[in-house]
């Protein structure tokens, strides 16, 4: 795990999407947390797909299918 979180980049990304939206202090950390968890879920799903395919490497096809599922799940 990295020691530092790209907090500034997160803020800029959110601003780019929603310029009018403001962020409170340390909220970006929670956003980052959310992002990590999202990646976590994505990786798990991709690994599962790779297992089902009996391959030892995660291939893009596994990732794509995993992404579809997780993205849908991630929608609040």
């Amino acid at each position, binding site marked *: 795990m990295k020691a530092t979180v790209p907090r500034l980049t997160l803020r800029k990304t959110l601003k*780019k999407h929603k310029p009018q939206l403001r962020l409170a202090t340390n909220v970006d950390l929670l956003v980052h947390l*959310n992002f990590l968890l999202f*990646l976590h879920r994505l990786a*798990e799903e991709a*690994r599962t797909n790779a297992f089902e395919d009996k391959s030892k490497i995660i291939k893009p096809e596994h990732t794509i299918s995993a992404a579809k599922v997780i993205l849908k799940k991630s929608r*609040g």
Partner: protein
Amino acid sequence: MLKRVIQSQPQVSPLAPRISNHEDKQEAHAEVPSKRVSSMGELQLPDVAPENRITVFCMTKKRKKLSISEFERAAERRLPQYQAQSTLDSTIMTRSLHMSVGSLLAPDTVEKRGLFRRPKIRRAVDMQEFEGRVEQYMLKSKGQNYLVDSPSGIRTSILTSDAEMMMNTTELFVQPQLHEQSQNKSALEPQLSNLKTSAERSLISDADQEEARLEGLVSGVSTNEKRYSKSSRLDHEHVDRMTHISPQTPAKQQEEKQDHSHQSNGMAQISFTEEEVVCSIYRWSSSLSFTSSSKYLGSPVTLNISTISLREVVSHIIEDLEISETKEEMINAVNGVEQERIFQEAAEHGANAGYSEHLEKKLSEKADLQITAARDNRGETEMAPSAGEELAEGSIGAQGSPTADSEITKGIGAESLGRHSHAFSSFRKPEMTPLNETDEQGGELQDQAVMLELNSSVEEPAEDEAEYPASQEVSMKTPAFVRAPASNLLLSKPRVAKPASPRSPVQQLQPKVLPRRLGTSERKPREPQIPRSWIKEAFRHFAKMPVTTDAYRIVEKCCERYFQQLSDDLEAYTHHAGRKTVEAADLEVLMRRQGLVTDKTSLNVLIERHFPLQYRKLLIPVAVSGNKVISSS
């Protein structure tokens, strides 16, 4: 005397040290108060205090109580004393001492017989002058630095050369003032205002001084300030006057000078630089004696043909300031009559016979007018070198095009400033309406002739240039004589420095070439991007399996999509809560809806799981040993 001494012997001793002490203090404070007006009171008070103490101690016990009124009186008296004290004048000090002592002693008791008192020698005149100067200085320094040492300034003023005087800030249209005064002022405010202003003022002051040293110091100071403000107005006036210059005949130089100084100041060129130049010119002229060489006049006359552009004037001013040898120049410029002669001579020396002939004709007709007019306006100030430069400029311009020449001549002729870098010629502005008029009258040949003359007189390659003007249409006559002194000055003075210096700024003025951006080109605003490496690392950690590179690209895309969704959701939650700022609660709601946060796993658990300590501290109030709780901001 002896009796007094004997009687006062025992009493003098205690006083003597006091007096000396007092004097010392006064001396010490003499300079300081002069420096700072504001601090004067402060200085005086402590000064008075010890003195009082001493007096009380020495004099008698009767004097213990010094009424406040007395003290104030003494202090007040001391104030002007200190103010006036710019120099360590023993008389002043003694006087002040006596004043202070007297004030202290007089009201209290009868003067002791034995008290030794120095005769109060009052140099009323000196003091008045000095005080006046000081006041002026104070007035001026109010808006400006107080740090200028009046005593030092005054001294320096006396010692300063003309160049320094130029540096001093004197108003444009300083009415006739005492020469000393102007000097003092200039010295006092060396630090003030830029060169231009100083040049103007110095010019004006000088001109005024020579012309009429009548006005008092105080009036001068006040007028200076006013003049400065009115300079703009005067310039307009001068412009009008300039138009009338041509018809003017070479009247008394001084008179003309005055007029011209004003005229020159108010020359059509409203630009500040012009004024400055004029001022500088007049100053030079005024400072210099009129009887100086006729030869000087010759050169400027020959040189001045083209009108002087503003820039030329400015350059001239700059040059003037730089060059300390103003006197010679001034002398040259001053003589109007000489200019005429010079002009004629220049015509004779014209490179082109034909031009010379023509020039002579026209010169005879209008040379007088122009010369006198130009000389009056500028002649005094025109510096030979400047004139020479102008000529060079004019010649250069002539090369370019006939219009350029006319412009050049106009520029030169318009304003008296002789010194102009070559570049200035190109920058001449048509502002010199009066000059233009005169120039038009003069005709091309005149300008050419002048150019030629100037060139001949000027050592610089102006000669080559002079030929060009002849061929081209140059109608400005006035610049001829204006240039003459400039050319003379050039000859006399080190020209290399002058042309080089003015040229450099002129060149700089020329079309600005934007510096090319090398290497460091404009940075395109990079879009915020989550570092790929970071994503890769996190994903690999979570997946615990080797991941192909292609898969990573997909992961990146997913991330982008994810962020979009995230921002939308957060906005919805925040808006639902009636807020505009996303809060932690909103995030928690989101996570709960995502299924990340359940009844089993709380948010804090998640934080602890995934965040390093430093971030955990930020998000969760941490209880540390020692009964300390580190709460999230």
